[in-house]
C-alpha cells in the first residue's frame, strides 16, 4: 500500500512541476529513479524509446510504463492518474476563470499576443524534429549557456526528404487525398518506413 501511495505522490509531483509537455517530465523521472532506486537510467531510456514508438502521447506512455515497471498493472494506473491529477485541477480552474473573464478586454488582448506565440512554439517544435529527422541536425541546451548548441551528424536522410515532399504534395495539393484522415498518412508512412528501411536497420 505504501508503495502505491509513494508512486502516486512521485508522479503527482512530476505532473505538478513539469511545465511544457511530456518531454519536460523526463528530468523528474530521472530523479525518481535516482532517489527511489525503482529503475536505472538505462531502463528509463529504454522506456522512452518504447513510449515514443507506440501510440499515445509520450508523457502518458512514460508514466504508464514507469508505473508498470515499479508495481505492475495497478502501478501503471496509479502513476498515470497521479501524473494527470495536477493538470486536471489546474486546467479546470483556468477554464472556469476564462469563462468568467471571457468578455474582458484584457483577456482578449492577451490572447491576441498569445496566439501567434503559441503557433510559433508549435512551429519551432516541428522544425526542430524535422531538422533532426531529415538533416541529422540535433539541438540541445548546453549547460548554463542561453544559446542552444547545434550539432550535425553528417547524414542527410534522402529517403525522408522524398517522403516528406510526397506527403506535402498529397496532403496539400491533390484534391482527392487532401481530406483523408491523418491516420491514413501515418499508416502509409509506417509501411514505407518498413519497406525502405527508414531507420537503416
Amino acid at each position, binding site marked *: 500500500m505504501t508503495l502505491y501511495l509513494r508512486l502516486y505522490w512521485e508522479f503527482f509531483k512530476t*505532473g505538478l512541476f*513539469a*511545465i*511544457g*509537455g*511530456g*518531454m519536460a517530465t523526463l528530468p523528474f523521472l530521472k530523479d525518481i529513479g535516482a532517489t527511489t532506486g525503482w529503475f536505472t537510467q538505462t531502463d528509463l531510456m*529504454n522506456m522512452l524509446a*518504447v513510449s*515514443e*514508438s*507506440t*501510440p*499515445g*502521447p509520450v*508523457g*502518458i506512455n512514460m508514466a504508464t*510504463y514507469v508505473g508498470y515497471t515499479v508495481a505492475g498493472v495497478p502501478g*501503471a494506473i496509479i502513476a*498515470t492518474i497521479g501524473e*494527470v491529477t495536477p*493538470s*486536471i485541477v*489546474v*486546467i*479546470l480552474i483556468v*477554464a472556469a476563470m476564462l469563462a468568467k473573464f471571457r468578455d474582458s478586454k484584457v483577456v482578449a*488582448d492577451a490572447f491576441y*499576443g*498569445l*496566439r*501567434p*506565440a*503559441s*503557433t*510559433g*512554439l*508549435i*512551429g*519551432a*517544435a516541428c522544425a526542430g*524534429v*524535422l531538422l533532426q*529527422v531529415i538533416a541529422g541536425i540535433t*539541438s540541445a*541546451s548546453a549547460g548554463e549557456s542561453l544559446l542552444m548548441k547545434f550539432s550535425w551528424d553528417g547524414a542527410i536522410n534522402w529517403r525522408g526528404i522524398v*517522403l516528406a515532399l510526397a*506527403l*506535402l504534395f498529397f*496532403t496539400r495539393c491533390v484534391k482527392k487525398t487532401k481530406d483523408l484522415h*491523418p491516420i491514413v*498518412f*501515418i499508416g502509409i508512412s*509506417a*509501411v514505407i*518506413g*518498413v519497406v525502405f*528501411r*527508414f*531507420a537503416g536497420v
Partner: protein
Amino acid sequence: MLWELFLTFAKIGVMTFGGGMAMLPILEREIVQNKKWATEEELVDYFAIGQCTPGIIAVNTATFIGQKKKGVLGGIAATLGVVFPSLIIITVLAGLITNFAHLAWVQNAFAGIQVCVCVLILNAVLKLLKKSVVDKRTAVIFALVLLGSMLLSVSPVWFVLLSALSGIVLKALEGREAK
C-alpha cells in the same frame, strides 16, 4: 455525452504518435472538423495555456475541451479517454515483449511515422497561422517566438507570458493612438 467524450479522446490517444504536438493534426480533424466541439482559435489558445501550465499538453487540451462540453466531469472523462489507450498498449507490450523498441521493423516504421507526423504538424501550423497572424504585429510575435524557441534554451513559459503581456501592451498603445 460523457461516454462520447471518453470514446472520442480514446480514439485521439490511439492516433497520437509522439508528444502533445503530434496530437494537433488529429485534434483538428476530430474535434474542429468532425465534432465541431472547438474552433481553430480555441485550439491555439488551449495549446498556449497547455504549455505554461503544469503537466502534459495532451492532457491539458483534453481537459479543456471536455470541460467546455460537459463541465468538470466532461474534463475528467476526456482526460481518462486520452490516457486509456496508453494504459492498455503499454501494459500489454511491457508484459509481452521486453525489447519492443529494438525490433528492426518497429524502428523502421517509426522512422517513417516521424517524417509523416512532422509534415502533418507543419500543415496544422500553416492552418493556425491564418487564424493567429492577423496583422504585422502578430507576424513579428510569431517570427520572434519561432526563432527564439529554436535558438535559445529558455522555457516556453517565458515566451507565453511575454507574448500575452505584449498583446495587452500593443492593444493599449493602439487604443491610445486611436484617441
